[in-house]
């Protein structure tokens, strides 16, 4: 290899620097939010309802709203997303026009910005289907947004299944569906779980699409047809309307800590998947 020239050393230095910049950005953003937010945090902040548009009190209804919306989105998207993955990997010929079309539309869906989903949810669910600004409209919109993630992670998991598993099951006389239910789906479970965890992360952080579909009412939602405000939307309102910087930091803290936990779980389940 010979000696490394000074010029090469300089260039290597630049590469190291860019790696450091990434770490620096991440650490300073998360560190800053946590350091400022932790001062606001107490049990009252988590468990009480906001007062005076959020300038006092806690964020309890926004936590519950986030939970409802995420659950509804998962209940809708997981069966459909996993079903689509099974169909694409186990039934459709990869050369078929239909499989090509589904893959193309799934890719397109994954690239569409959330504001477009918001517009669609608003015109189709809120107005055309008359669901109004509600948990239902928001949850369905969110389900559409996480569908590509659920399908892709399930597809990837199914793809890693050794072909003998499938062949042995079929050779033992199991039908195709029995093979899917007893062999393929259990095997793909870690992949499906990863998709679900990633989707929860997306749901917790989503803002633009939910402002247009779930609204921003601060009350505690009593039914699927009530409007709701998630933690992220609450953070946006507090910061943009200048209601309370302190409360905004507290909310940002809760969101960031949730994202950290979700990310940790996703890494765990990805590791299990690759094993």
């Amino acid at each position: 290899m010979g000696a490394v020239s000074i010029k090469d050393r300089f260039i290597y230095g630049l590469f190291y620097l860019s790696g450091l910049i990434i770490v620096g950005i991440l650490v300073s953003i998360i560190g800053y939010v946590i350091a400022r937010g932790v001062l606001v945090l107490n049990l009252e902040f988590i468990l009480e309802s906001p007062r005076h548009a959020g300038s006092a009190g806690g964020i309890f209804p926004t936590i519950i709203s986030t939970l409802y919306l995420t659950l509804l989105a998962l209940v809708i998207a997981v069966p459909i997303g996993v079903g689509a993955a099974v169909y694409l990997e186990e039934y459709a010929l990869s050369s078929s026009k239909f499989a090509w079309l589904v893959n193309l539309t799934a890719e397109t869906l994954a690239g569409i910005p959330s504001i477009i989903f918001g517009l669609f949810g608003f015109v189709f669910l809120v107005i055309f289907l008359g669901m109004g600004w509600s948990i239902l409209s928001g949850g369905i919109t969110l389900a559409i947004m996480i569908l590509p993630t659920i399908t892709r992670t399930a597809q990837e998991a199914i793809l890693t299944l050794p072909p003998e598993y499938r062949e042995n099951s079929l050779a033992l006389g199991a039908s195709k569906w029995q093979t899917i239910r007893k062999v393929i789906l259990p095997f793909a479970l870690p992949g499906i779980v990863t998709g679900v965890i990633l989707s929860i992360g997306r749901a917790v952080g989503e803002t633009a699409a939910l402002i247009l579909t779930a609204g921003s009412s601060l009350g505690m939602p009593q039914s699927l047809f009530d409007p709701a405000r998630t933690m992220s939307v609450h953070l946006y309102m507090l910061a943009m309307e200048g209601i309370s910087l302190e409360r905004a930091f507290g909310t940002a803290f809760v969101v960031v800590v949730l994202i950290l936990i979700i990310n940790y779980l996703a890494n765990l389940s990805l590791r299990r998947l690759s094993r």
Partner: protein
Amino acid sequence: MELITKPGLSNCEKKNRSLIVAENRHRRVDVEKLIEKTLLLSAAVFVLIIALITIFIFAKGLPLFSKIGLGDFLFSNQWNPTKGFFGIGTMFIGTLLVTMGAMLWSVPIGLSSAIFMAEIAPPRIGKTLGQLVNLLAGIPSVVYGFVGLIVIVPFIRESFGGNGMSLLAGAIILGIMILPTIINISRDSLLAVPNDYKSSSLALGATHFQTIRYVIVPAARSGIITSVVLGMGRAIGETMAVVMVTGNSAMIPTSILAPIRTMTSNIVLEMGYASGDHQTALFATGMVLFLLIVGLNLIINRLAKAGTDDGRG
């Protein structure tokens, strides 16, 4: 089934049994068919959703052009909904400038980090960095916007003057947000370059850096271009962070310290109270965004295909 009730010889019974088995199998096949149909339907949901999104956004946005011309809508700088002026020219330029500004710094840093992670760093550090980048990707845009509003905007105000809410603040925050897209996809394509390429180049006496520059990066170019185009798509579509730090005045910026308003900001800021033609104009803006993003996706699709063809050849 009626055969079973009839008394008969053992021979006949055997026949009955085989009939029952056949019938069971027939029923099972029916269930199998039903399940296949159900699964097919869930796959078809993707196609249905894209069709619905396209139809509803276009149906809501297109009627605008019976009132004002397409040229006026796209190129006029007059956005005054109460007076019936719906020109998104300034917003289009706002989106374009903030996207370019973000890419200007995040593409070089993103690519060099990707090269660092794939080729230079020890594997364990590369892997840890990869997890950190995933975390960066997982932070919600509203949190980026909030940090931008609290940290970057005052910093710009105090160091360079002006109000701080600016094109520059948008470009900084947006650049951070598209870093993970650029890094992840380019790193994957760099790692996918066959090891033979690298060892052949090193065996020929090239230095590690020469190998990266003349062999590995060119071999991964379609993935790298894809990462940049995808990052651009993300920047164009990003909403919350941009709304929070760019000041949102619908004017052509005269400097990087001037405020801007993007197309996405315009939609999220005005949708809440818009009605009539105003609402139609916002949907028409969404239509333009949708076409831009789908267009970029089609380009990426082509690139991916070109990439695999290269691999074969």
